[in-house]
């Protein structure tokens, strides 16, 4: 087809479209418009290191929609998937593709904090409703917060802040930290220090490795030389497995206890094996939380996906629950955004992780649990901090 013909076709389509739009303007057909399916765009990592997390968030979301009868606010849901490859450089383009070309009504994503920041910028500019189902970068619901940006997972600050008290109460006074030198690692260490130092503890040394390096021997030797009371570590995925194993192999597990946010032992226990036993972590979920919502979630997830549900599935599951509450309030009429956001703001969800609600900055307010690795699962021990809200420093919507 030549360029001219293509142009002609486009122009004809344009005219048709304009005519249709004119008609629709003259004779509004609300019933028809509201009957059409809503488009949810998943922008998640479907390949690469975080592929499994992306898959579980996707499945968790669909599972909740199915459990709500396949509809949200009375309207069927259509999905569009974009693989963000955990690549911050492509974040803006991918998000624009969903918003511009695919014309989705909502975007759900993503895992990697750098990509999430790029998505939040586009969402802020275009006004598209964005629900973040994992990425923890504090700024998404702090400096970047907006009426249309929501988060059902956590801020990096949330699981780490309660750890200061846990470690202090365990009698530790001099603590060393070790993590990768990048945003999430540094935000985690800052949150721990905030509570631990206030109580009178001391962080004697902060050790950092370049991301995503996994050669830990030199720094583990340093820990052994300095002999702190305990160590706070944040790593995830393959890095978490290797660190926990190297730490145990160096003989430090017995003499210098290891603590960290839950990601240190979540989704990695089969590979870590006995070397992870006894590690205490804090997170907004535990594998064996004893509440009806969690049991229902775990059973349904297993039936649908064939694998054990985890915290990432829960975050996707709750994203669908939150969107459902907003759409129910406006009976699926997404033009009534103010009313929809007001309903989401007031949402009280009986989540598998316990009761959750939302702060003025639109970040989830939730219990943080202390867990211990026992018999190959992250076993619930106690509530480390009930209904913890992120301080949302620098969010102007919240103040």
């Amino acid at each position, binding site marked *: 087809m030549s360029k001219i013909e293509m142009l002609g076709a486009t122009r004809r389509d344009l005219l048709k479209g304009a005519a249709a739009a004119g008609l629709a303007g003259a004779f509004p057909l609300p019933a028809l418009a509201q009957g059409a399916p809503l488009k949810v765009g998943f922008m998640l990592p479907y390949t690469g290191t975080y592929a499994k997390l992306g898959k579980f968030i996707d499945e968790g979301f669909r599972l909740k929609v199915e459990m709500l009868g396949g509809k949200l606010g009375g309207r069927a849901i259509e999905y569009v998937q974009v693989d963000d490859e955990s690549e911050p450089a492509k974040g803006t383009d991918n998000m624009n593709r969903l918003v511009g070309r695919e014309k989705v009504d909502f975007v759900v994503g993503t895992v990697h904090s750098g990509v999430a920041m790029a998505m939040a910028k586009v969402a802020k500019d275009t006004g598209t409703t964005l629900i973040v189902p994992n990425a923890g970068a504090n700024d998404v619901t702090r400096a970047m917060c907006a009426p249309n940006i929501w988060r059902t997972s956590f801020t990096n600050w949330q699981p780490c802040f309660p750890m200061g008290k846990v470690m202090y109460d365990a009698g530790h006074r001099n603590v060393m930290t070790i993590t990768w030198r990048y945003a999430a690692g540094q935000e985690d260490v800052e949150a721990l220090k905030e509570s631990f130092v206030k109580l009178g503890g001391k962080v004697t040394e902060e050790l950092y*490795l370049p991301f995503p390096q996994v050669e830990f021997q030199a*720094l583990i*030797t340093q820990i052994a*030389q300095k002999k702190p009371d305990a160590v706070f570590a944040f790593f995830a995925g393959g890095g978490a*497995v290797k660190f926990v194993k190297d730490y145990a192999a*160096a003989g430090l597990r017995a003499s210098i206890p290891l603590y960290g946010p839950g990601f240190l032992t979540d989704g990695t226990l*089969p*590979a870590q094996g006995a070397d992870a036993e006894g590690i205490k972590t804090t997170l907004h979920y535990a594998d064996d939380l004893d509440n009806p919502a969690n049991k229902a979630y775990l059973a349904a997830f297993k039936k649908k996906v064939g694998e054990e549900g985890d915290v990432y599935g829960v975050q996707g599951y709750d994203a669908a629950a939150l969107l459902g509450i907003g759409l129910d309030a406006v009976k699926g009429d997404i033009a009534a955004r103010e009313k929809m956001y007001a309903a989401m703001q007031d949402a009280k969800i009986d989540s598998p992780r316990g009761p959750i609600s939302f702060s003025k900055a639109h970040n989830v307010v939730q219990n943080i649990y202390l867990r211990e690795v026992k018999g190959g699962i992250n076993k619930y021990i106690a509530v480390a901090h009930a209904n913890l809200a992120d301080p949302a420093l620098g969010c102007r919507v919240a103040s």
Partner: protein
Amino acid sequence: MDLATFAVQLLNGVQYGLVLFLVASGLTLVFGILGVINLAHGAFYMLGAYVAYWLTLQTGSFLAALVGGIAIAFVAGLALESLFIKRLYGRDHLSQVLLSYGLILVLDELRHILFGKDVHSVAPPAFLTGSFKLTDVLSYQNYRLAICAFCLAVAAAIFFVIARTRIGMIVRAGAENRDMTRALGIRSDRVNRLVFATGIALAALAGIVVAPISTVYPGMGDQMLILSFVVVVLGGIGSITGAAIGALLIGLTDTFGQVLFPSFASISIYLVMAAILLWRPHGILGARDV
């Protein structure tokens, strides 16, 4: 840092350097002798580790995984050379980069289909599972010491083959002047196939040997590939001795860099590389342009 800690860190640095040498040796062989930039070297390292995981699981024997993994990699190397790589000799580096980058994608997808995307760990052979005390709180795995010994043995074997055997002589001659070697009636294509397959087998071997201390995960080869190139360029392309020196230098720089200058840990090895290339633009023992 007291003397005991210094000694432990020295050991850490040397051990890391020896592992780097094992990975980089295959790369420098292929790069130096065939003139082929093989970006997929890291992917074969990763596949080696996954095969080690799978074979240990199936047979219960790490030794079987070692032998089986090397054999699989060697055969794969022979096949790849005769199908694809032999078309690359003498062509510009862009086509080589393109092909081997394509190989990375294929191998990664293959890994996904065969082994999934989970993280795994591999148990070392039973007789090496223990550890011994270095200081009052710090232990050192026997397996790490065994890796040191093993890497030294492999290095010695490579040196011996290249310097003392007929095949080594042909390889050196081919690297020096390919056309003249062929004119003298030596079937260099057969030697090339052997060299490439050996390079791939060495990458897989490194992955297998390192698997018990490194854990096995998707993308584990990416960083190793970059470090291997640093080692190869630093040592001088094609020089096995150079690769050994370069690897030890990088291992020690990285270890002591993390301890003494933590803020510069991510760039310390590149600073060393830049400094050495300013001093010797062809690498420490290199003769050709980089």
